[in-house]
């Protein structure tokens, strides 16, 4: 019986050892905790690029999709003959510098969906601190282009939008849209038109809001803004979860109400 017992023990230990060995032979990737990136006023482009590369390959999780694969555009070598991201970023949108384009792509990932790809990218300005975001931009610019990110960019959270929630604390309600209760300023600041169409402007990724008041009551619109998961328009089920849920914490009550009434009036 001892021989049997020993065989059983050997099989159990051998099987455990095999699985443990295999799991230790594959590449070891740890999910790090985002660290505060401190970049001084004299930070050099090289330092920014180095920091950005670390974020890109690490906690940013960018290589998950933006490797050289098929899930998202290739940023590092070539995307269908257009070159690396540093080469093409300045030509992607007329009137936008490379820096502006890259920031918007991180802040409002659904603003520019490259043909053939799904709108799956999370809002990186909510996941990373402004320092990390700008370091990544510097790294991306360095991929075939010229790095023009400097320390002066970092305190200003956006070259095009004053509303980034940022990864390190978020924007306060008073700062949102400069505190304005003008619905158009709020819509602009919230980036609604990156996905929604309204009065002939904006994208058609998410439901057209031009006649939203005829479909939804003010209460329903308010609930949708505060809790985007509360309902999903028919035909847009696969985009469920895309709409940011932070609007309720970004706007103050007056701004929210102004936006709700404005949209509800769009019959």
């Amino acid at each position, binding site marked *: 019986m001892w021989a*049997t017992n020993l065989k059983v023990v050997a099989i159990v230990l051998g099987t*455990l050892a095999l699985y443990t060995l*295999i799991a230790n032979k594959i590449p070891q990737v740890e999910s790090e905790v985002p660290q505060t990136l401190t970049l001084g006023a004299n930070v050099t482009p090289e330092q920014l690029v180095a920091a950005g*590369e670390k974020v890109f390959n690490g906690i940013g*999780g960018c*290589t998950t999709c933006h*490797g*050289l694969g098929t899930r998202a555009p290739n940023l590092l070598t070539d995307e269908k003959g257009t070159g690396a991201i540093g080469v093409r970023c300045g030509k992607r949108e007329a009137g936008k510098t490379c820096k502006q384009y890259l920031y918007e792509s991180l802040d409002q990932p659904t603003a520019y969906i490259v043909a053939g790809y799904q709108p799956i990218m999370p809002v990186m300005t909510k996941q990373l601190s402004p320092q990390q975001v700008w370091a990544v931009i510097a790294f991306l610019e360095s991929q075939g282009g010229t790095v023009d990110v400097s320390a002066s960019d970092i305190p200003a959270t956006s070259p095009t939008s004053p509303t980034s929630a940022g990864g390190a604390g978020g924007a306060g309600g008073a700062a949102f849209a400069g505190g304005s209760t003008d619905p158009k300023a709020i819509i602009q600041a919230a980036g609604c038109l990156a996905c929604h169409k309204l009065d002939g402007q904006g994208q058609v990724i998410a439901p057209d809001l031009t006649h939203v008041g005829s479909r939804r009551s003010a209460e329903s619109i308010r609930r949708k803004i505060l*809790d985007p998961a509360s309902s999903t328009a028919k035909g847009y089920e696969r985009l469920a979860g895309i709409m940011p849920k932070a609007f309720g914490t970004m706007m103050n009550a007056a701004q929210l109400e102004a936006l709700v009434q404005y949209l509800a009036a769009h019959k």
Partner: protein
Amino acid sequence: MTEHLLLGLQAAADTTRAYGEFPLIGARAAVWIAAEVHLMFAAFVLGVPMFAVVAEAIGIFGKDQRYDRLAKEFTRLLLVAYSATAIWGAVLVFFLATLYPKFWAYLTAVFGPSMWAYAGLFFCESFTLYLYYYGWDRWKYGRPKLGHWSLGLLLNLWGTIVMFIANSWLTYMMTPPRDITPTTDPATIKLWHAIANATWMPINVHRLIANVVFGGAIVAAYASYRFLAAKTDEERAHYDWMGYVGNFIAISALIVLPFAGYWLGREIYQYDQSMGITMMGGFMSWLWVIQAFLIAVLFLTGNYYLWIGMGRIPGAERFRPYTKYLLIVLVLGAIVWGTPHTMIADSKELAAMGGSHHPFLGALGVMSAKNTAVNLMILTTFLSFLLYRRANTRPVVPWAKSGTMIQGAMFALAAGVVLFYGIRGYFVEAIVRIGFSVYQVLAVLGCIVAVTVIDVLMGRGAQSLGAIQWGKMPPRSQYALFILAVTFTWLMGLMGFARSGIRQYWHVWQVVQDTSKYAATPALGYASKMISLCVLIFLTLVGFVFWLGGLAEKSTFVATGDREGGGGGRHVGH
């Protein structure tokens, strides 16, 4: 300046006693071990009553005492494992309260009343179990026997509710309702709102099935040990049969488990795309390659056990030549399923590879190829079982030949559908491709159900080619059952790491951040050591409690006689 100082003091106050420390291994490892071992025991004590009550029902309504005896033996294992479950549950609670006091306070603020209900139901479950086991011989016949069987049903009901409650706590940590933010006072969160979160029901269903798989595998390992230690042919025959039943339960439930897994994965993606991407393509991407390897071991070992088992069935020799083809399909399927796809890598590694996919093998790493491979492996395993089932019979119904041809056509059709959508998947967008997996799964399930129905009808009055020689199994078949049990347990630990690890540095996803020194989620190498340690602790303890249970057991096996209990060389059924 003063404001900053005050904020700093407040932050310091907030983190005071947020975390405790555990000697030598640290707080995270301590909680990890306690939670994992508790979960393994809990899965066992929740899974086994499900098939114990089914076995008892077969015994009652099929008037087959073997099954009643089997059900009682299942329950005896349950009884001794139950106190270990409770002990490890208490250890987990103490560790959480002392090592993660602030987070524990948060959870109790949200879920307090459900924790009281949990404790109350645990009492109900315990005493129902005692009644169920100790009343077995007292309420053995007639109407009282039905009452006894009802106790088994009640035991399952309590256990399921208890598990659903505990699942709500852990799924809340993964997918808290979207309106809950870091500033939400936990005391204001409605209990049901927190319970009914996005992944609660998928986890409930997934765990229900997984518990059956796990329970079956552990019972089979227990039976295999008893088989190896048996002193009489009767005893060997009984434990051979018990091992077969345990393995059959585990493999059968395993086949449907991936569908519950798909549902859970879909809910995770719908809740938060970035969480889904982290799980499937982020730092956890290699985990799925390991998982594929483990599943391949399960399929290969499970089939190997069936093929060896055919050696004890008269008439099975006519099917033996086919096993090599089945083996080829399984090996090829395992290779395809284990092919890596999108790997997390840094920019230099990606450039060195020439892409995130291997230029040649990358084509096999995509979901189209993997879904095709796994569906064909399921079909092959089912075919193995079918051959095993028909081994010692010859159908006598007049339509036997055409029935067999129809069965063959169904296999061919199902394989054709799987291959067609597998190839077609390369030429369509991802969103369309995902839908194809449903057609592949339906084709396989449809084939399994239809072929089984035909087989049962065709087997009516079938000519017997001889009884199964239960007990006539080489020892290597029993060691295969051990490998299955270890692999199932390890796989459970791995998937637990995946589910918990995708929260990364959050106790509650994007609501309560983990600010301890263990906040980073470890790499798979470290996780594998922890999983192996937990499996070793669990198997050692389970071996010990089974040995303890055996001390009080009076053997009913004798070399001859007692045909009701053993049945060596007598059973024809499966």
